[in-house]
């Protein structure tokens, strides 16, 4: 039986946000230990595809979300910023793990003490490294934020 023709009222913003959070593609920005857990999150056992996230784009120009997975050194920080700048708007950043969020246990000359000094961060994930469940929770938190419009800066 065919559905009767219906209509839907919504704001443009909520439609746009709905489509944004349902397919937020990540840029691969695996740096250190957390990248392995990020790989595990995307692989069969944890299956990030359930949340419309199975594609990690190799090119930042095709990505909406940068998951900074690991410690960011002083030498890497300009590269990180450049990759972030190459991503199209709107874009989001998840800082995965203690090192990316605050330098972690390495408070020394070589590391940027928190990636939020270089790029704006939306969600921080604690843990060293955070397990796949933590990362998925962070991604779902981000999705909620995008859906409600809280995290959209355009």
């Amino acid at each position: 039986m065919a559905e009767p023709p219906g209509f839907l009222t919504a704001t443009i913003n909520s439609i746009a946000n709905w489509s944004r959070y349902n397919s937020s593609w990540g840029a691969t920005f695996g740096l250190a230990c957390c990248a392995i857990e990020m790989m595990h999150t995307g692989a069969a056992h944890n299956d990030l595809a359930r949340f419309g996230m199975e594609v990690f784009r190799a090119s930042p120009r095709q990505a909406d979300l940068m998951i900074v997975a690991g410690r960011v050194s002083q030498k890497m920080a300009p590269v990180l910023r450049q990759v972030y700048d190459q991503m199209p708007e709107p874009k989001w950043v998840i800082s995965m793990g203690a090192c990316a969020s605050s330098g972690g246990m390495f408070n020394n000359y070589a590391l940027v003490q928190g990636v939020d000094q270089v790029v704006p961060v939306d969600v921080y994930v604690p843990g060293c490294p955070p397990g796949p469940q933590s990362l998925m929770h962070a991604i779902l938190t981000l999705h909620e934020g995008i859906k409600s419009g809280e995290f959209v800066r355009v």
Partner: protein
Amino acid sequence: MTDQMPTPDEETAPEPAAPPVAPHLAPLAEAFPEAKFEQSAAGQQVARVESGRLVEFVQAARDAGFEMFIDLTAVDHYRQRSGPRYDVVVGLLSLKHNQRLRILVPVDGDVPSAPSITDVYPGANFYEREVYDLFGIDFTGHPDLTRIMLPDDWDGHPLRKDTPVGAVPIQFRDTNKVL
């Protein structure tokens, strides 16, 4: 540890004047009478060589069977000893004899300098760049002595003992809160 066991020759050698070197090191000890061969506390073979004869020594060690280059690093004995401040530490491995040899080369000065051993072991290339980067030891004769770990515009050499760790104070928010 097979490489730490003293050979039977050493145990039976009665006169203390003879250098207590294992047979595989005999050609080295003969050619370099000024090099000091000793055992570390845990029984590893160490040779102390002046930096002027390092390349010759390493070449001789390679001919004596230490075919594999393992490691090159440095130690900063800042205010720990009188005499040269740094030791360049070269690690070699002999697969033939199943032995290791660690060569300590004392170097000193504001711009400490040691000869590069890349002509003998090309694998020392990156290791010497690392020591140059982190300790500021200049390896003369190195083909491409640039920083390797840190950006080019970095100031200073972080692994020197008079360089601080570089920690930034951690700012906790809401410090008035009773935890």
